[in-house]
């Protein structure tokens, strides 16, 4: 199974690099150091949000409210920043994470305690938080010259040649990789996704885990609220509208099974890198708007198909293995 997934990630990495090479051939300007740095900066938000989505999908859930959470948190913190420009910059990401965490906990409570299907819960909270943006802002935008200096400049700080945006993406990736591969909590998520009832019988605290998965997703979405509003120097009601679907698409391309229980952090990250790069490249090589939409849709479908045919053998192997381990214990 490890081998299959590894090769899949290698394939994704290879196609990602191939994309960049193709763009470089068509438009040499695309592969300059500056251009690649910009590309990685641009990918960081999708990376973080795809990972937030990945752990939810892993346990057979879905979180459609990630983008609304991002937008609401971004607006809240932007408004607070405008009112208190003197506070140190570290306050903004911390506040974003706190607000995002609460939003995530709310989803978690509804899903884990009240047993409402995640798609319904998050569809509801998606509208709630979108609406709340309007309520807190009165419909006004927060724009570039209103933000405090550090709010916009700090994430753009280059460290070892790459912006803080990308380093945040990398740090989150590493943290999530540690969580899903090295902790008991992370490993049990795979069990829950594979077979929630069996996991429960095996002593996994399904409710508890569900709650915390939605909470972590909320916290990461909140963090993206700062990244987004800072990157585009803008907070309004339409921020990241429809972005939740891109995060799901990134997961699917990265080999995360919509039916839960299968997928890796590295896969999801490469899915995000691939999709995000595609969005960057299509306009650069001069593909028209209509074709851009059609092409990205087609690629998602191909990825899903790929998932279906490549997953069959591993699934058959996981179950007997898990079963035999259970017997041995």
């Amino acid at each position, binding site marked *: 199974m490890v081998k299959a997934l590894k090769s899949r990630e290698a394939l994704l990495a290879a196609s990602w690099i191939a994309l960049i090479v193709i763009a470089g051939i068509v438009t040499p300007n695309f592969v300059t150091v500056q251009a690649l740095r910009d590309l990685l900066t*641009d990918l960081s938000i999708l990376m973080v949000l795809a990972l937030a989505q990945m752990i939810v999908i892993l346990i057979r859930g879905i979180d459609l409210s990630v983008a609304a959470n991002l937008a609401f948190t971004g607006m809240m913190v932007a408004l607070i920043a405008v009112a208190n420009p003197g506070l140190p910059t570290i306050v903004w990401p911390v506040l974003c994470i706190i607000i995002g965490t609460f939003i995530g906990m709310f989803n978690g409570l509804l899903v884990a305690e009240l047993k409402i299907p995640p798609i319904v819960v998050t569809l509801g909270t998606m509208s709630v938080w979108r609406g709340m943006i309007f309520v807190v802002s009165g419909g006004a*935008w927060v724009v570039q*010259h209103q933000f405090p200096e550090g709010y916009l400049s700090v994430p*753009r700080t280059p460290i070892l040649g790459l912006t803080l945006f990308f380093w945040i993406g990398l740090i989150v990736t590493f943290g999530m990789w540690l969580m899903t591969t090295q902790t008991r909590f992370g490993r049990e998520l795979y069990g829950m996704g594979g077979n929630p009832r069996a996991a429960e019988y095996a002593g996994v605290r399904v409710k508890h885990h569900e709650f915390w998965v939605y909470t972590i997703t909320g916290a990461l979405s909140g963090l993206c609220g700062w990244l987004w509003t800072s990157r585009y*120097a*803008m907070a309004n*009601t339409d921020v990241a509208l429809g972005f939740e679907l891109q995060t799901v698409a990134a997961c699917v391309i990265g080999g995360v099974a919509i039916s839960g229980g299968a997928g890796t952090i590295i896969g999801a990250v490469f899915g995000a890198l691939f999709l995000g790069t595609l969005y*960057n490249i299509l306009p650069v090589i001069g593909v028209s*708007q209509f074709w851009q939409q059609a092409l990205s849709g087609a690629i998602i479908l191909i990825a899903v198909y790929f998932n279906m045919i490549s997953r069959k053998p591993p699934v058959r192997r996981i179950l007997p293995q898990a079963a035999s381990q259970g017997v041995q214990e």
Partner: protein
Amino acid sequence: MKLKHLLSMAAIAGLMATSAAMAADVRIAMVPKSLGNAFFEAARDGGNEAAKEIGGVELIFNAPAVVTAEGQIEVINALIAQRVDAIAISSNDPDALVPVAKKAMKRGIKVLSFDSAIAPEGRMLHMHPATAAGAAKAQLEMAVDAIGPEGEIAILSETPQSTNQNEWIEEMKKLLPSDEFSKLKLVDVAYGMGQSDKSYRETIALLRRYPDLKVIIAPSTVAISAAAKAVEDQDMVGKVYVTGLGLPSELAGYVHTGSIKSFAIWNPIDLGYSATYLAYDLIQKEEVQAGDELEAGRMGSFKLDDKLETSLPQPFVYDASNVDKYSKIF
């Protein structure tokens, strides 16, 4: 306790609403493209100004939260049920709103469109914010103002279906061969789909594809700020100028940093003011025909052309000298 408090508040609010409705003889509804857009909020303020001036007019301002025709249809249906006297609409889709607009007219409600048009069979008159030719000319003039008469330009629009933007782009293409603009070379038209991230990415793509690009014309509020931010992030301020249509309060920062030298927008206050006046004129006159002159208070009068359309004068240009003054208003 709290609940009681809320209930009593609601009761008071209800009383106030009914008394306001009783006081007003005429109710005019303004339906912009969406809520939460400072441009239309300024239009509402203009509408309220007109309502106060005329007297006995109540202005109802409502729209969907996001820019969709479906959302507007719901809002308009609700307004029909409330039996308002006139509805002024900035449409999200020229054709999709026709059936609901016809339904309103059948019930005796006067329907006009302003800013973004409804197809002729769905409205009694339309008021352009500026003639398409006027808006197009202003944008090309600003490009020339920034870089001189020669250089590569690109357009970053909203969506390929946006009625207004497409019209302006058409007009710009018509104007380009004229002597004044003949040395401007339009290299591309890109679409930011009304989203900051997409607009930003499209701007970067334009900069990469056309290293000699001098001006990006963005006739959309989201696109122009995203483009200006991208130009700043790419350290291209002074090499590439962004211009187009946007709001002073949203663009003042970019004018000061230099990525935008000048931009234009019609005065939304005047737009809302005039639309409200025209709605009132429609209610008074029952019917209008080509050639009619309609009164609009301090804006003078508007003459309807043979398509029953009229328009505000040219858009107003903002630059470093006046942007701070207007950014406090809208």
